[in-house]
């Protein structure tokens, strides 16, 4: 194993949940959601008037929209009481918009992210790292060479101030309007932090840009907004990781992600989600792909109590391509409801969706996906493949794909399988000297390989370690 990976081996994944810092913050809103709260957040951030107006409009929509309760087999959201959530906590840091140097951060925040392996990951030559602690970005860096080429990677609050026109045009207007769903509306009202990525024309950022999100306070909501604009012929890979310590109360994560993939541009968005198991993870992620553009979503959902997440792509320009790779793993008490949505709105568009899920110890996974081929999207093709692995009869594995085909010159295929770990496979590996647990772990690692091979090595290692951890001692 190379020395680059050693720090990952040393990062105790379990410790990420067990340690939690004494909450110390400069500004904290009252629990609950009122117009006053929204005004306070906006004022504290010194936002322009239009952003406050958007927030208030979103709040109005949030209040009018019903909770989603009638989806077949959906996670129970009855515990999610917005009035119990503290929407906005600003960590106690002098510098607004994040510190430039790691050393400038308060010690306890440094310590937290050290445990998460953030600086090491940066040393490993990721091109930029943003880390969000509670509601605000506390550390952000971008390697100089990219900055010189005009690439912007900064926190969202800073982008509102410094790149106002770009933000004003793209922020929750075309990709994720607040009216999309109740939690998108909530997000629109009280969003805070997140990342802004801008890649100019003809620029390839050939190292991944990385952000890490963490909630440290009990009963906390995190609502970070990520906006990625990739201009014509550009290329970027953005990675987000998420975690939170364990508390008895619930946490709510309701992020918003908007990606604009310009003509012939290529964006990959990878997520390794490992929220603690009291977190409700209700996100809205959407990309709009122009002519000949490629959008790739790579998602691993390991954590959270309940996840409802369906990254979606609108294939707007002819020849645009979408690839989805999603892996969900649900253990005891977890309900991971995830999938993909693709809208083929132009001719010659292609999409592939590959979904893998693992459910065990009473966990529930659900693939819920929608492929829509609009009238006129000639020669569109889509292929959806869902595979599920189950460990016991307390767990549940659902597959609920929806296909809407309004064009006849298409090629549409959907396939799904569900099965248990093959006794023969386990026997084979045992006969090669592996014990039962190792054999099963190896089979699972093989099962999720299509995901791990899409990730940089340190994330792939982390994924495998998370899965190992999830499986330890749980195998019969």
């Amino acid at each position, binding site marked *: 194993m190379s020395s680059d990976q050693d720090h990952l081996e040393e990062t105790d994944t379990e410790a990420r949940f067990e340690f939690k810092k004494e909450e110390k913050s400069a500004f904290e809103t009252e629990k609950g959601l009122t117009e006053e709260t929204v005004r306070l957040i906006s004022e504290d951030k010194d936002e322009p008037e239009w952003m406050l107006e958007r927030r208030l409009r979103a709040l109005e929509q949030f209040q009018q929209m019903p909770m989603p309760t009638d989806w077949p087999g959906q996670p129970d959201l009855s515990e999610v009481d917005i009035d119990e959530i503290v929407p906005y906590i600003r960590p106690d840091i002098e510098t607004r918009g994040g510190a430039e140097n790691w050393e400038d951060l308060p010690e306890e925040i440094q310590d937290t992210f050290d445990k998460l392996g953030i600086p090491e990951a940066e040393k490993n030559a990721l091109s930029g790292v943003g880390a969000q602690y509670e509601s605000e970005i506390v550390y952000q860096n971008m390697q100089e060479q990219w900055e010189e080429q005009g690439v912007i990677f900064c926190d969202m609050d800073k982008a509102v101030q410094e790149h106002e026109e770009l933000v004003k045009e793209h922020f929750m207007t075309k990709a994720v309007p607040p009216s999309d769903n109740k939690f998108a509306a909530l997000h629109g009202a009280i969003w805070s932090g997140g990342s802004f990525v801008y890649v100019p024309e003809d620029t390839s950022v050939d190292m991944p840009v990385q952000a890490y999100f963490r909630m440290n306070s009990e009963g906390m909501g995190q609502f970070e907004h990520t906006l990625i604009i990739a201009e014509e012929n550009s290329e970027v890979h953005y990675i987000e990781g998420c975690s939170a310590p364990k508390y008895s109360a619930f946490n709510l994560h309701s992020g918003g992600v908007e990606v604009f993939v310009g003509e012939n541009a290529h964006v990959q968005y990878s997520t390794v989600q490992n929220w603690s198991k009291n977190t409700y993870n209700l996100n809205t992620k959407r990309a709009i792909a122009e002519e000949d553009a490629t959008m790739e979503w790579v998602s691993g959902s390991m954590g959270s109590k309940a996840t409802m997440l369906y990254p979606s792509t609108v294939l707007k320009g002819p020849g645009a391509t979408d690839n989805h790779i999603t892996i969900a793993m649900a253990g005891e008490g977890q309900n991971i409801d995830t999938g993909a949505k693709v809208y083929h709105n132009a001719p010659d568009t292609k999409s592939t969706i590959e979904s893998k899920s693992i459910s065990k110890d009473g966990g529930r996974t659900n693939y819920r996906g929608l492929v829509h081929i609009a009238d006129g999207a000639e020669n569109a093709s889509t292929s959806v493949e869902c595979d599920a692995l189950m460990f016991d009869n307390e767990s*549940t594995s659902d597959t609920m794909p929806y296909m809407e085909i309004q064009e006849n010159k298409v090629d*549409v295929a959907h396939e799904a399988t569900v099965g248990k770990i093959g006794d023969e496979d386990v026997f084979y590996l045992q006969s090669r000297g592996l014990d039962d647990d190792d054999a099963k772990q190896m089979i699972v690692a093989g099962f999720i390989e299509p995901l791990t091979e899409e990730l940089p090595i340190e994330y792939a290692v982390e994924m495998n370690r998370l899965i190992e951890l999830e499986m330890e001692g749980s195998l019969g």
Partner: protein
Amino acid sequence: MSTQVHANLTEEQVTQISEELGEPEWLLETRLDALSALGDLDMPEVIRTPGRDWTNLDALDYETLVDPLDWEQEKDRVDAEGVDVLSWSDALAEHGDLIEDHFGSVVDPQRDYLTALSTALFSAGTVIYVPEGVDAEDVKIRTTMNSRSLFNYTLVVAEESSSVTILERQTTGEQLDGEQYYSGVVEVAAGENSFVQYGALQNLAEDSYNFQVKRGHADTYATVDWIEGNIGSRLTKTSVETRLLGDSSESKIVGAFFGHEDQHFDLGSRVWHEGEHTTADLVTRGVLDDAARSVYEGVQDVGREAWDTNSYQRENTLMLSEESEADASPKLIINNHDTEASHSATVGQVDAEDLFYMTSRGVDPESAENMLVEGFFQPVFEEIAVDELLEDLDDLIVERLQA
């Protein structure tokens, strides 16, 4: 819809239907309960995605269209030796206790608004009773609808180690104009080690609305097989379902549809694996022409205690025209890991290479396409074990292709 006051459906009408059939008190009660529940019941479920309902069941004002006392049909029943194939009034006279045991035990009379309407108002229909050990020939029922609305109820009771194949054909009489409503409920109670095969070919007039629920309970070692052909009607909403309750029970649901003009088919195939060692196979193929629309939902539900389950599902749709539309949702709900389950669905058009091959052999393009469409149905035809149904279905498909 569910909040409407049903001004023109009254208890008196229901009581009158019940009296004419010479029904016992319990059945009248069941009907009246269903009638009074109408106000609280929802329409059968339809799939909804953001901004779209896959089927609109509110297009018809059922309660205005329905005239429960004015019903007319032609029934042609061909029975088989050892099997009782009876109208409701005869069946109630001969097998009152048997009917009381099974009626409503498979299909909940109040599962939704349209089923409750059917339970309250049914007047036509057939009871088929296959006694223990009887290995029967084919039973054939031909229903011709001759009134604006017709409520048909079929109850099949197959006792231990019996075997029967039932063929049902639904058509509309020639003298009818305007919108019509056909509602059919089929209940199959398949006893231990019995075999029931139920084939239906629906070719109602193309201004009719068609709602059907077919559901079977399979006991230990029992087999319930369904064959569904849908050609007629303007709007069809069906659900064909099997609960595999007994260990080692089996079910196969085979479907074929061919829609043209502005026809809309909303077809469901659903199976619940509840016993151990159960097997299900769901196969549906359909073709859409003109502005026809299909909605397909397939559900394979494997219960917690359904050890050693095998469950397969395939759905393929062929689109012949620009304006046609195909929606599909094949669902897996798996609660036991000792399962081998898969499903697949495809939507596409006639393969250009196939067409080119045929035309290069001197077949004109239209005949070539027709042959390829007929060929597309072949995998489904192969699953249809009943020759007579197969021939009829093939004839209707050829007829439509040539239209």
